[in-house]
């Protein structure tokens, strides 16, 4: 029983960052219809910036994470303005090829700048795990969980309660009609991509101190983000949130009870099962009325 609780806690900590990644990717796909292959690289970018700010520039740890998120936002906006906006009227295949190119370029850029040796981001938290009843958890992981929960709530507030969020939802549902309402659709696109990228970068910055930072770390994470998006139904934000937690829990329990060697495989087995049984995702919306 204690072990189950421990795995569940670990899964929830990991799940929060998976949810951030999934939300970013599903938002970009849902609103822009862009299959964003650079998503995993934005995650790596955030992790490397955390390393740069904390380990090399000795900035405050929390400030560094915020700066990494801002830089992810800026890089996302840049990618949208330089690569995606000029391709707006091109077909999805062209855009996909360009995004694959950007993915390769970003990854090799990271390797060029930082070299192939993995980096460790130091954290200000004590190494001693906190023991809470039957479970123990590293303070750093507790911070990551708290930060992701705050971000998730903030993100839902933005989408559900603000004028901007309403404009984003309207653009998602009907782009042309949104334009007729006076929404600056191009601006919404840039903002969407920047916001999604910032979520990926902050996930990287948060997990950087837990895992090692290396140039190819974005590959697996990018794939997992796609898996989460498929699990939750394309373009479905709540689905991506739940999908993130489900994937992390499956990985955690699979690694704990079946085989830790196959940790990353369990998630993909789930995806194969989803695609075979329910290809529209578990939380796909019902067919629209009217």
């Amino acid at each position, binding site marked *: 029983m204690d072990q189950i609780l421990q795995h569940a806690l670990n899964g929830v900590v990991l799940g929060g960052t998976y949810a951030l990644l999934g939300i970013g990717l599903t938002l970009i796909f849902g609103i822009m219809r862009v299959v964003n292959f650079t998503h995993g690289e934005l995650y790596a970018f955030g992790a490397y910036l955390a390393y740069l700010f904390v380990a090399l520039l000795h900035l405050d740890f929390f400030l560094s994470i915020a700066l990494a998120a801002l830089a992810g936002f800026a890089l996302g906006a840049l990618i949208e303005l330089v690569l995606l906006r000029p391709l707006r009227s091109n077909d999805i295949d062209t855009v996909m090829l360009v995004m694959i190119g950007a993915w390769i370029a970003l990854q090799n850029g990271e390797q060029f700048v930082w070299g192939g040796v993995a980096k460790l981001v130091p954290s200000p938290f004590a190494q001693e795990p906190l023991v809470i009843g039957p479970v123990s958890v590293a303070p750093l992981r507790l911070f990551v969980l708290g930060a992701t929960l705050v971000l998730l709530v903030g993100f839902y507030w933005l989408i559900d309660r603000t004028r901007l969020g309403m404009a984003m939802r*309207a653009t998602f549902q*009907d782009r042309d*009609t949104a334009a*007729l*309402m*006076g*929404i600056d659709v191009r601006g919404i696109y840039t903002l969407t991509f920047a916001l999604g990228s910032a979520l990926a970068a902050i996930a990287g910055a948060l997990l950087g101190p837990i895992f090692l930072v290396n140039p190819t770390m974005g590959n697996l994470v990018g794939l997992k983000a796609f898996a989460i998006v498929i699990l939750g139904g394309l373009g479905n934000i709540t689905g991506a949130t739940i999908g993130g937690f489900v994937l992390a829990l499956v990985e955690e329990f699979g690694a704990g009870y079946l085989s830790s060697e196959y940790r990353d495989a369990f998630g993909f087995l789930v995806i194969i099962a989803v695609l075979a049984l329910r290809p529209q995702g578990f939380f796909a919306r019902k067919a629209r009325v*009217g």
Partner: protein
Amino acid sequence: MLRLDAITVCYGKVPALREVSLEVHAGELVTLIGANGAGKTTTLKAISGLLSLASGSIEFEGVPIANTRPRDVLARGIAHCPEGRRVFPELTVRENLAMGAYLRRDQAGIADDLERIFAKLPRLKERIGQIAGTLSGGEQQMLAIARSLMSRPRLMLFDEPSLGLAPNLVERVFEIIAEIRREGTTVLMVEQNALAALEMCDRAYLLETGQMVLAGAGRDLLENPHMRRAYLGG
């Protein structure tokens, strides 16, 4: 008020409109009729900025508006109520109406307009918290019209407002449009229901395969032999 001068619009290389000219004066109700694919919707989309022109010009109150963005056209006072209602299906009625007033900042004015619209369409007030996709077709059309009114336009573009509605609702929609015009908003309406459109309009234009073939007062076009043969069933 609105003047289209020899506009040509292409989809890819194929022209959908060829040198179409049209004029709407302040206070008028003008209708644009034609068969499916004649270019009626394309004309409205060119006016509201959803499509750009290959050639020609569009002026609204003396200012060129062709090839500007939809939000700039809306800000000048033209609202476009699109074909097929196009309410935001997963937003509530309240949110849909708020989207109509997206460019406005005068909260008091928005609240006043909302009350006026609810007085006219009490059904919408009853359904204020409901998700728009769950409304009936007629209710969605009323919502689409109300949403366009929320921008306080001086010129309203209606695209097939009667499409897919039961006959009694069609009548109600035309009544509402006539009322909007009586209250001082100029109207340009695209309609397939040629008879009803010609009876209620001041002037009408007829589009055939992307070209303007007839123009005149509504009652004159009702008598026009070509019009009678091709569009009025007799």
